[in-house]
């Protein structure tokens, strides 16, 4: 986990030359809010201009070491201002509104990206971020590669015959397991990767119920690494009799991926879709994608 002392030292060091920094775009100080937004900033080669990010910004590792401006929906106006940013690049979920408007009133430029869970929205985010960061050409490079990658994956997925039923399970704090309905990132990912969301038909996340799980009859259970960690292993998942009795439980087919990679809808989307498709369709031969600079960061 990130340590407070490090981010404090960084922020103090950063403050030291805050006023000496030239004001043209290359020297801009940026705060990024939202895990995939931060990924885009790094993908556009502007990671060295970041002076702060929120708690959900955990990729690449460098983002995790930045001063922490708090949870994505619990930002503090003065906390943001204390980093003397010239630009705040915020994902759609950033909030609260008052903190952003107060920061803007203090003269900080804020660019807010719209929420969305499609390959098109990822490209729009990259393009908008490119404009905001004056890195239009880099944005076009990333987008070109992304278009190529996603087209290849979707073409491969198109050729698949069967569509396994996938049940996405998410551990949300004390709230127990949640399953994903329509208009969720998990639903969109399953569809993109050539699966069928076993619990479609309602909106948002709903609490898991054993009977509904039986009725969903999933072939595969999809979970995040974080959920597995919280539960203490995939065995814990199968210890639930309802889940164990499903086709997925009987064949012990569980796919686990990093939450941000799986559901972030950032520049790594095409690779995530490919990895998920390969996991959902072990029988098919889905070609790996070429590594891109932003998919291979430490």
């Amino acid at each position, binding site marked *: 986990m990130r340590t*407070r002392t490090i981010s404090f030292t960084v*922020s103090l060091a950063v403050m030291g030359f805050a006023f000496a920094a030239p004001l043209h775009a290359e020297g801009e100080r940026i705060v990024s809010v939202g895990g995939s937004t931060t990924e885009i900033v790094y993908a556009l080669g502007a990671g060295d201009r970041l002076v*702060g990010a929120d*708690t959900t910004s955990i990729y690449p590792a460098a983002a995790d070491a930045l*001063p*922490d*401006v*708090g*949870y994505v*929906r*619990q*930002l*503090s*106006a*003065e*906390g*943001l*201002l*204390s*980093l003397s940013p010239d630009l705040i690049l915020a994902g759609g*979920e950033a909030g*609260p*509104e*008052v*903190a952003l*408007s*107060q920061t803007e*009133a*203090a*003269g900080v430029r804020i660019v807010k990206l719209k929420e969305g869970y499609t390959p098109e929205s990822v490209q729009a985010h990259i393009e908008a971020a490119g404009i905001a960061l004056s890195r239009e050409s880099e944005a076009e490079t990333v987008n070109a590669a992304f278009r190529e990658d996603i087209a290849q994956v979707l073409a491969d997925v198109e050729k698949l015959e069967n569509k396994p039923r996938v049940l996405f399970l*998410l551990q*949300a*704090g004390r*709230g127990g397991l*949640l399953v994903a309905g329509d208009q*969720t990132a998990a639903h969109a990912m399953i569809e993109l990767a050539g699966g069928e969301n076993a619990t479609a038909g309602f909106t*948002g*996340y*709903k*609490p898991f119920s054993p009977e509904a799980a039986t009725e969903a009859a999933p072939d595969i259970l999809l979970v995040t690494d974080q959920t597995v960690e919280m539960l203490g292993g995939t065995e814990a998942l199968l210890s639930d009799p309802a889940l164990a009795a499903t086709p997925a439980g009987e064949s012990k087919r569980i796919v686990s991926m990093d939450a941000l990679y799986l559901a972030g809808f950032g520049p790594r989307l095409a690779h995530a879709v490919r990895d998920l498709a390969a996991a959902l369709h072990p029988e098919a031969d889905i070609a790996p994608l070429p590594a891109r600079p932003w998919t291979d960061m430490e």
Partner: protein
Amino acid sequence: MTDIAAALPRMSRAARRPAILGGLAVLLAIAFVAALSTGAVPIPFTDVLRALAGMEMDSRTAAIIQSIRLPRALLAVIAGMALAGAGAAFQGLFRNALADPSLIGVSGGAALGAVFVIVLGSFLVGILPFLASPWLLPLAAFAGGLAATFAIQGLAQLQGHAATATLLLAGIAINALTGALTGLLVYVSNDTQLRDFTFWSMGSLASGGWRAVTAAALPILLALGIILSRARALDAMLLGEREALHLGVQVQRLKHVIMVAAALAVSSAVAFCGIIAFVGVVVPHVVRLLAGPDHRIVLPGSMLAGATLLLVADSFARVIVAPAELPIGLVTAAIGSPFFLWLLIRNRRAA
């Protein structure tokens, strides 16, 4: 006739009243200036004063002081006054040093209103677009707090007059109901909504823009004025309801007035700040230990001390994990819970 020299030592506690209130006011003033001077952005004290005086200075510093710290500090002051003042009045009304407006459902109702908007707000706005407003949540919390209070009063009134025991039982029932509905909404909420509600229920003064301050100030100052005007009647209530009646207090009317005023003050504070624990119980108790139970000092003293506590707690909340901030409810609870436990043990021993 009274011998003045003999009367002097006996009057000492009454004579100390202005001194105690004066002292608390000075503490509040210090905490206020300190709150304006602390924050994630280091600003020299002289610049704070210059910004307050409206003098020429760089625009970012001016914006931080004038549009972030100042309204936030003012919200801390009025919310602290509301929570501690309403708590003190409640304890007097129910003759119980551990009573709290949450007994009559204010916080439970407000929480229900808040979670309703957090979970179903986007759905509601989808049907009724005119509802889309940053005011929807505070309004719903405010309405929830007042509605729960009126429901409890109404239930207690069914017997003709609001007997304290009936009132408390009705409070338990309504609190259980709002708690269940809140739990239900939390249960069907998604991850983001759950996080939003969790943060709301831990309290924050981050919504303290100027509009929040002005919107909260009017009902709170009105309610606190009403509460202050009933100080002596509350003193009489401490003797007992019948004793108060025989001293000329209209007990039933007093109950209504105090409950509505306290609900108004607390709902307004909760609407903009979320749930901030312990201020309403701990602060009046400290003032009582300091100055005795006379409401002429407990009420204004609690208001001053409550404002001071919230200012200090918020200053901590803003700098401990800067550039992020802690929910203020955590800070007040961290200070409040050990004290509260000590209070319980002490009361148990005394009983």
